[in-house]
């Protein structure tokens, strides 16, 4: 494998992760707006459930990138997951304390979005430096 092929390998997963994340965010937005604009029925149920499929796509691409990476990059990706968990634990606890002080209550989806955003940024930085 030459250097150009390695650079190409790490470029396509970055594109794949970004594409899947945008698809997830787009379908999530559509699902959030669906109850307001679509009448109850099959179409609305499908639009609401589609984000679970795009999340599967995100997880699948990250899993593929993990399996296709070398040992050091794999370790860094696991480090990203651990760091994301720590950041989520502290931020959710911090917001809980702020809620007790009168700050507005947040939806569970905000934790989901925040966690995925943090993990994606950390993972993309690892993949970018692995070029």
């Amino acid at each position, binding site marked *: 494998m030459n*250097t150009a*092929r390695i650079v190409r390998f790490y470029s396509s997963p970055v594109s794949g992760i970004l594409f899947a994340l945008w698809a997830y965010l787009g379908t999530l937005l559509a699902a959030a707006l669906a109850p307001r604009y679509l009448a109850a029925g099959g179409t609305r149920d499908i639009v609401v459930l589609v984000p679970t499929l795009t999340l599967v796509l995100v997880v699948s691409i990250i899993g593929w990138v993990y399996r296709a990476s070398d*040992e050091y990059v794999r370790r860094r990706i696991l480090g990203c997951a651990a760091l994301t968990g720590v950041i989520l634990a502290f931020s959710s606890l911090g917001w809980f304390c702020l809620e007790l002080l009168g700050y507005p209550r947040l939806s569970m989806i905000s934790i989901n979005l925040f966690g995925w955003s943090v993990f994606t940024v950390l993972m993309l930085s690892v993949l970018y430096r692995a070029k």
Partner: protein
Amino acid sequence: MKNILPELRAQRGWTQGDLAARLAVSRQTINAVETGRYEPSLSLAFAIAGLFARPIESIFQGQREMRRFPVAAPD
């Protein structure tokens, strides 16, 4: 764990990217191994030794870092 990877690489005029390409790993991995931030797996160490046609112990030297956990059970 110390290693003489930079010296071996310099003897051949290879960059970290060249070595990474020959070992089918990322340049980041080679950099981490050379600077001692990462100890390579046995398979990668064998690949490095094979590439430079030297025994592993002549490339990697040093004591294994002792960890507090897990504690080995006494015999």
